[in-house]
């Protein structure tokens, strides 16, 4: 058996072990690469900085635990940022599984900044209906959400005093892992009602949202764990996302090596020893 053939027959479990090591070793022994902040993340940060204290921000948790390593750190950083600027958070979710995630991140940040539920933040929970939920919230929030996620009437919560519709919301941020999510908030929230919309999305969907950024339909965007890490850096702290960046770097390096290495043999051996039989 030639080298090329033997390399091709390599047990994939060996590759599994290599990628695991590429992730675990930098986590245990950090390298400390410097993290640069990209423009869309900076813009999102500034959109929050520019709000007046007391303004209400919708943070819509349109994701689930399967994408938590990417989006949950964004959720935490945003909640901390809002509370540090004395903004009020109206949490909700177009995905059913996002409700506990939004709640946990807000509770954590609230403890740190001494904020209380019902006054500085609320979690309205989940409603089925995707794009219609957005248009319904735009027209009438209390009719869409008569209760918060745990069944408390919203009329009893001070944060919702005088809140009727999108007129009382200054900024919307969708943390989105797919549909329904950013698309719906842009189409209805920004397009139809002229609200400012920002986004935190999984890396898988991030490239598709650059047209929205360029056309000004999104004020800013965090893409993937890297986007979350950048936001953590802007918040002058560190978090799970920035701690993961060394591992991300090494794993990328390994995968790029795999692609180049295998393609080198593919191109060299294509004529003499076809990769495919």
């Amino acid at each position, binding site marked *: 058996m030639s080298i090329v053939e033997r390399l091709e027959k390599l047990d994939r479990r060996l590759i599994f072990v290599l990628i695991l090591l590429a992730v675990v070793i930098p986590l245990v022994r950090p390298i400390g690469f410097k993290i640069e902040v990209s423009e869309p993340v900076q813009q999102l940060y500034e959109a929050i900085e520019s709000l*007046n204290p007391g303004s209400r921000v919708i943070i819509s948790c349109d994701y689930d635990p399967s994408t938590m390593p990417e989006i949950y750190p964004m959720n935490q950083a945003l909640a901390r940022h809002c509370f540090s600027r004395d903004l009020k958070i109206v949490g909700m979710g177009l995905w059913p599984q996002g409700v506990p995630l939004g709640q946990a991140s807000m509770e954590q940040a609230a403890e740190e900044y001494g904020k209380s539920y019902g006054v500085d933040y609320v979690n309205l929970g989940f409603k089925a209906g995707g794009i219609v939920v957005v248009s319904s919230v735009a027209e009438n929030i209390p009719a869409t959400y008569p209760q918060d996620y745990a069944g408390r009437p919203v009329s009893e919560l001070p944060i919702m005093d*005088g809140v*009727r519709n999108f*007129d009382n919301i200054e900024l919307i941020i969708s943390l989105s892992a797919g549909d329904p999510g950013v698309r719906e908030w842009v189409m209805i929230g920004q397009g139809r009602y002229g609200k400012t919309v920002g986004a935190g999305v999984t890396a898988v969907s991030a490239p598709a949202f650059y047209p929205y950024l360029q056309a000004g339909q999104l004020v800013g965007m965090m893409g993937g764990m890297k986007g979350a890490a950048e936001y953590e850096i802007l918040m002058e702290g560190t978090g799970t996302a920035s701690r993961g960046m060394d591992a991300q770097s090494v794993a990328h390096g390994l995968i790029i090596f795999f692609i180049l290495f295998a393609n080198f043999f593919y191109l060299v051996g294509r004529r003499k020893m076809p990769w495919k*039989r």
Partner: protein
Amino acid sequence: MDGVGRSLVRYWRSALPLVIVLWSVSGAASGATTPDTVTPEPPSPPSNVAAEDRSNDAGGSVVISWTKSADDGGGKESVVEYLVLRSTSLAGEFQQIGSVRSGVAQFVDQNSIDGTPYFYMVRASDGVSLSLPEVSEAASSSAQWFHTGRTNILVAGALLSFLVLLFIRKAKRGEELYIRPIAGLEAVDEAVGRATEMGKPIMYVPGIMDMDDIQTIASMIILGRVARKAAEYETALLVPTSRSLVMSAAQETVKEAYLDAGRPDAFDADRIRYLTDDQFGYAAGVDGLMLREVPGAIFYMGAFYAESLILAETGHSTGAIQIAGTAMPSQLPFFVTACDYTLIGEELFAASAYLSKEPLLLGSLKGQDWGKAISIAILVGGVILVSFGMSKIVEWLTTR
């Protein structure tokens, strides 16, 4: 408002601050002002208070805007909030309808009765004392019958609808609608031929979504073509599905294709199997099938998610020719690099319209094509105009 009324308003507007001051001193106004507090000087008042109907809405809203107090973001920096008050007459009592934080110079009154004129008063507050008030001219809310900021959408929508309906009609009447040959379809035929030469079966993977997904429907149409070729070449065709409905649809399609090819006897329903609904369970099942049967050609047509690269990798390792087609943007890159040919997004739908000759599909495709052509024309024209400084078109494309 007639001339007399206008001058009366002007008179009241100039006299009103005085009246209010007198009120405050006598303690008649809101409890926020007490004459002997530590801050002797209240913030300076906001100016240019204006109120007008919110345009293009269902009524019931008046927008009040003003120029910020000199002590907001400057001067003494003492303003904490602005109070907005409303009255139906200048002489009448003004009632507070809301407040906004300093730095904000706009408020929307969401509780106005259409047709009733209101006067709005805005006062700056430093938390202890209130500034002199400023009052707007009378404004009333109303509802509109047409949203003037959305004419462009109406035109675009009407045009696109017209084109789609026109072409569907033409197609139904049996007019020939030209669609360019899709390169991917030639690749499909070739792959079937190559598998036959190698004496290996063909595998067709229709994605993991159910029959209500348009990609699965398109996949079934292409399956018809593949099955026909397979029947002609007498090559075995395996179709593992992840939905029971897709399995029955696939069996129907393949049976019909074999009938068309004049080989109903060669049709074997057992080769079209339902594996499991679970995403990764299905991927593992198809992987196993690939390794056992070693197909010469593998087709991936339909809606794919994360399992795409598991399938494409195993397929690649068996040495089969692989042809993919999907409209899932996040999976397309993996298919492009792991397969020999890939139908990208709309090409999948175009291929199915081309094959089925279904008037609905053909007509819509044609209508959308015209939509694209018009978009290109507007883009080219717009880019040229704008670069010569004529930005009227940008304005026209702005929706409110």
